[in-house]
């Protein structure tokens, strides 16, 4: 248990497990720490001063804080490429055996940094707005500049290999979500739990307890941490309580929906360890829907802004106490503490008790007189009143502090400076409540002049307790947590009496003074750099310069200087920055603006956001009952909505797989000359029953349904109320009060909602019900001249062309399976659509192929389907139409029943003058003069190809294919006044300058009389 290699580790104290020593590597050097350490506490224990180089000036930087607010100690984790994690805060990373970390900045290393020369020289050449001013012109070069700047700045890097870990989400519900397990949060959770409420308590640290884990105070005469342990034990026993340590509440969204990010295995290793062969998820997003939310998020201590306050060895005062008391680490030997308040005196007392030297406490107040001040005096600690540290001395580590009397109101140095020899400067300028989550609700925080900080404004159902709303005293914070929880539950109609908080000493503290930036003998612009935002290298001078350049709102100052724009979101610097801007502008802090925070509170790994919605689970894939057969046949698939539809079925010809063009040519010819088969199961199918079913159809379709007899099928067009085509399909009359509607594959859900919408809101008196049966039926289209012969081999249905006509449907058996067969055609050929209950589909399909062998039954996919229907001029709603096309634009006058008795949807719009214009875009066919040309879908059509740009555009190509039947390219298009342009030659200009010559023709290219589907 030798600790000789950890020079700053105390012999005793702290919550670390001294018996468990862990090896880790930082910047290639091996060190040792203990279980219970963070990477930061272990580095400090080993006396590592420089942990990074700064973003812009490349100055050496050390650890400043002990939690999420740390701006400097960002490290790159990972010993292998796949395990790389950028920008991890060392203060929040638990130490584990073998941890490997590197500084994110600094080349070739943090000790000897090439960029620092640039930083030293560049300081004066890199004022705020430097990037804007320098790299904006010429604008086209920005992309190039940006790459170089990013590389130079370097904020970690992403792994180049696949992440071996998995991530997931968990949906949680509770009566009360308590964020933060410090004194207020524990008291709140205990109050709610004892009242029987469902409670979630989350805390971002490795161990719950918050400030109690490092507190000097006693609770019920015992160390405060013991009370915390007892409460956590009690909560853990309660099965209505969910405890989530290592879990950061990152975003408050609407209606008490809060996202929590739980780091599940990051304290165990760089990738999740395998347990029973399974690697559990590395981190998890809890999606919490809470009845009420209680924020017990504590406060962040503000450092003072003085010269060279970024030299390693400068820390915030509370962090010093945390390292000593919680981790048994004193981060130095000789301390100077510079404060504006009593609370921070604890750092000096802790330091003194650790047996190291407190050189002096420099207090900005003239006569500090609180109890802690008295304690320090009693120990003989030198207290320099009315003064502050003006400037730190040293390069890679503090070696002195220049101290002088100051006048805070006049912002000037009033006394002679004295240099105190020391290696650590801790500072405290007060405490900012952590109001981020409250701010996510959109509520603007308000400035409190007594607390010297913003306190949260709270929307209904959100509560704050303890330091999060400025109640910093321990006894008061405990009581506050309990009473706020009780209020929150009352809002849910549940009564909960606040727990009796443990007895805590009341410590009388004197009033703090307002001090943010410490004055220097030199004006701010000439003084040594006084850092406000260390992560983004924003100095007090930069903020002052921004105000001089005319930026008055803090929102503008922030954007100009990048204050608060780092991954730490300016947790330490924002208020100081606002105070400096306010001083420069001669205004108060609230007058320069409030501070706005947005999710996320700390960076969240993409994996946790994505969860398991990735790879083959990224989006649902919908399969038909025949999917497996298609896969086995080597089909290529096309995404149609979420469906996977066979696109084409490439065959091996002479050992070579067909291209799509070859496969489609073969499939198209097979349908026109023999027989093909298509899996049409994806078409939407809606069962419609009721005495008013027929009436309802007449109102939602443009055409007539009054006389459609059972056994018959009709094609229908559906318009939106603007008269534009929405969907199309066939509807069959199954019985006098019973219809089966089909919709397009993509339109199915929309049509179903459309029918329900009109029924429920406009015509509730109609007796009709709609039920989706899309998935119940499998649909197989057998089409081509040989279709009848093939089907007749396996069905008992009379297929005689007089008995079973085009647009008829019949019941019967196909391959011994009960089937409904519809004689409808989307190819223009003889076609039967066989519908069977989906569980039996594969048997029917396979039987068709057994019998189809002699006809060379050819499976075809959506591409061939498109070619065949386009040859017949049959539209696809959503491809040939785009929400601006009427049935009449499509030339389907026969499908619009203006004389129907009821005002059907779209009728009124179709009688407007605009929809009757002669120059509307009308549906036509196009034939390229050069038959080898296949036009591009979406291409524009013009009269004069030589007209200077902007050309007069007549319309555009909606569908275009090569037709093996026509041995030519052909297209469908919408063209202004197209029906009057038949036979005209028009042009389709292409981006490369050439223009294709096309002839306007009828959209029906094959069998214009429609004889083939009637055979």
């Amino acid at each position, binding site marked *: 248990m030798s600790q000789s290699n950890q020079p700053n580790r105390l012999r005793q104290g702290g919550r670390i497990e001294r018996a468990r020593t862990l090896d880790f590597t930082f910047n290639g050097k091996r060190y040792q720490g203990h279980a219970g350490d963070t990477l930061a506490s272990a580095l400090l224990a080993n006396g590592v001063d420089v942990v990074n180089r700064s973003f812009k000036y490349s100055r050496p930087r050390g650890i400043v804080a002990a939690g999420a607010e740390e701006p400097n100690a960002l490290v790159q984790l990972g010993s292998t490429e796949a395990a790389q994690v950028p920008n991890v805060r060392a203060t929040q990373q638990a130490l584990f055996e073998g941890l490997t970390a590197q500084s994110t900045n600094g080349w070739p290393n943090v000790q000897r940094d090439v960029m620092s020369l640039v930083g030293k020289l560049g300081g004066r050449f890199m004022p705020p707005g430097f990037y804007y001013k320098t790299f904006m012109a010429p604008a086209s070069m920005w992309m190039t500049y940006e790459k170089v700047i990013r590389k130079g700045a370097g904020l970690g890097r992403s792994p180049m290999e696949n992440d071996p870990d998995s991530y997931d989400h*968990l949906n949680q519900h509770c009566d009360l979500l308590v964020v933060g397990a410090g004194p207020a949060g524990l008291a709140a959770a205990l109050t709610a739990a004892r009242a029987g409420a469902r409670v979630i308590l989350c805390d971002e640290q490795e161990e719950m307890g918050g400030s109690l884990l490092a507190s000097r105070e006693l609770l019920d005469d015992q160390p405060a941490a013991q009370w915390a342990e007892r409460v956590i034990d009690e909560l853990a026993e309660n099965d209505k309580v969910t405890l989530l340590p290592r879990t950061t509440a990152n975003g408050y969204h609407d209606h008490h929906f809060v996202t929590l990010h739980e780091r599940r295995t990051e304290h165990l290793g760089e990738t999740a360890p395998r347990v029973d062969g399974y690697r559990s998820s590395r981190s998890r997003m809890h999606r919490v829907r809470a009845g009420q939310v209680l924020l017990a998020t504590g406060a962040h201590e503000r450092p003072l802004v003085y010269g060279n306050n970024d030299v390693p060895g400068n820390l915030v005062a509370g962090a010093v106490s945390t390292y000593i008391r919680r981790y048994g680490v004193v981060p130095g030997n000789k301390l100077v503490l510079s404060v504006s308040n009593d609370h921070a005196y604890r750092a000096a007392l802790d330091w003194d008790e650790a047996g190291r030297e407190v050189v002096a406490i420099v207090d900005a107040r003239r006569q500090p007189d609180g109890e802690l001040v008295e304690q320090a005096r009693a120990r003989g600690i030198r207290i320099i009143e009315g003064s502050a540290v003006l400037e730190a001395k040293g390069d890679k580590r503090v070696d002195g502090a220049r101290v002088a009397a100051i006048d805070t109101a006049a912002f000037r140095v009033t006394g002679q400076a004295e240099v105190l020899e020391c290696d650590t400067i801790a500072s405290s300028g007060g405490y900012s409540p952590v109001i981020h989550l409250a701010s996510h609700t959109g509520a603007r925080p308000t400035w409190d002049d007594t607390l010297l900080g913003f306190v949260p404004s709270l929307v209904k159902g959100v509560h704050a307790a303890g330091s999060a709303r400025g109640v910093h005293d321990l006894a008061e914070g405990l009581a506050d947590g309990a009473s706020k929880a009780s209020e929150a539950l009352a809002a849910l109609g549940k009564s909960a009496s606040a727990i009796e908080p443990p007895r805590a000493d009341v410590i009388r503290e004197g009033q703090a003074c307002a001090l943010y930036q410490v004055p220097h003998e030199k004006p701010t612009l000439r003084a040594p750099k006084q850092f406000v935002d260390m992560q983004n290298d924003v100095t007090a001078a930069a903020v002052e310069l921004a105000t001089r350049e005319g930026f008055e709102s803090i929102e503008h100052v922030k954007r100009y200087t990048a204050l608060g724009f780092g991954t730490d979101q300016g947790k330490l610097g924002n208020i100081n920055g606002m105070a400096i801007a306010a001083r420069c502008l001669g205004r108060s802090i609230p007058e320069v603006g409030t501070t706005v925070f947005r999710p996320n509170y700390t960076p969240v790994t993409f994996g946790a956001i994505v969860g398991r919605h990735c790879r083959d689970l990224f989006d649902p894939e919908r399969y038909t009952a025949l999917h497996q057969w298609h896969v086995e046949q080597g089909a290529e698939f096309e995404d149609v909505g979420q469906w996977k539809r066979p696109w084409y079925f490439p065959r091996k010809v002479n050992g070579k797989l067909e291209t799509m063009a070859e496969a489609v040519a073969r499939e198209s010819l097979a349908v026109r000359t023999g027989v093909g088969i298509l899996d049409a199961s994806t078409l939407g199918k809606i069962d419609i029953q009721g005495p008013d079913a027929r009436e309802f159809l007449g109102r939602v379709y443009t055409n007539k349904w009054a006389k459609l007899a059972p056994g018959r099928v009709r094609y229908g067009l559906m318009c939106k109320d603007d008269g534009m085509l929405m969907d199309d399909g066939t509807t069959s009359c199954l019985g006098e009060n019973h219809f089966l509607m089909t919709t397009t594959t993509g339109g199915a859900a929309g049509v179903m909602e459309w029918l329900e919408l009109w029924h429920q809101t406009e015509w509730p008196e109609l007796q009709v019900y709609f039920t989706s049966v899309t998935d119940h039926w499998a649909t197989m289209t057998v089409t081509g001249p040989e279709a009848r012969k093939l089907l007749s081999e396996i069905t008992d249905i009379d297929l005689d062309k007089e008995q079973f006509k085009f647009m008829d449907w019949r019941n019967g058996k196909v391959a011994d399976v009960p089937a409904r067969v519809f004689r409808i055609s989307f190819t223009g050929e003889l076609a039967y659509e066989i519908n069977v209950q989906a569980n*039996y589909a594969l048997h029917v399909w396979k039987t068709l192929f057994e019998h189809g062998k002699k006809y060379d039954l050819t499976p075809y996919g959506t591409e061939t389907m498109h070619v065949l229907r386009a040859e017949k001029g049959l539209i696809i709603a959503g491809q040939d139409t785009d929400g601006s096309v009427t049935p009449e634009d499509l030339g389907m006058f026969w499908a619009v029943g203006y004389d129907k008795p009821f005002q059907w949807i779209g009728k009124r719009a179709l009688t407007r003058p605009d929809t009757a214009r002669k120059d509307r875009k009308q549906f036509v066919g196009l034939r390229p003069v050069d038959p080898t040309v296949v036009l591009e879908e979406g291409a524009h059509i013009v009269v004069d190809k030589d007209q200077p740009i902007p050309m007069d555009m007549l319309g555009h190509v909606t569908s275009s294919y090569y037709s093996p039947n026509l041995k030519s390219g052909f297209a469908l298009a919408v063209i202004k006044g197209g029906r009057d342009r038949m036979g005209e030659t028009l042009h389709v200009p292409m981006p490369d300058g050439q223009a294709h010559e096309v002839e306007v023709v009828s959209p029906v290219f094959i069998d214009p009389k429609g004889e083939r589907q009637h055979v």
Partner: protein
Amino acid sequence: MSDITYGQVATFNTHPEAAIPSESPLSVAFNQISVSTPAPAVNHASGVRLEEKAFLGHLILRGGAIVLDEAVRKVLGISLPGQPLGLALDESGERSVQWLSPDEWLLIVPGGEEFEVEQRLRDALGDAHYAIVDASGGQTLVSLEGEKARELLMKSTNYDVHPSNFPVGKAVSVVFAKSSLILRRPAEDRYELVLRRSFADYLYRWILDAGAEYGIGVQR
């Protein structure tokens, strides 16, 4: 004759008389076309056990609660659930009826019974305005059991499945992963999912992936 014109409505017995091979909506998944590793078997360590109850009869009932309740009681001896989101089972537990929407219920019966049940319901309903639709080919039922079943559901749906909100006898249509399904609680130790055929493969793969950490096993 598989088709009977029932008054003005055509009913249809989808089942062949001959023995014909059939495939449930999970057949693709079970044939491992889409999952790289075979479905894990159930063992003593399985925190979740999944079993498909394939080929059941699923009927969608639409109409007024009072007439449908009478008819269902007469034919099956079960009352329609009295509350929204209710689920009622017969004594054998093989037949169930659940609320889907204010005028819509899902009736599940043993496979092959659905056509006869439909006819008897139609007889009982007489002239009332209602609809009965066979959906048996379009959906399948999957049961989830095991101590980790609830946690698996929490990974998948934003519905609150805590026993205080989702007790036995409740059934809800929920968002599940990026799809949706019907979630039922017929017994203390069992959940049932009704999956739509076309989404079944995706949902099954999701459940297996989400259940891997609990050692999920598939009962075949």
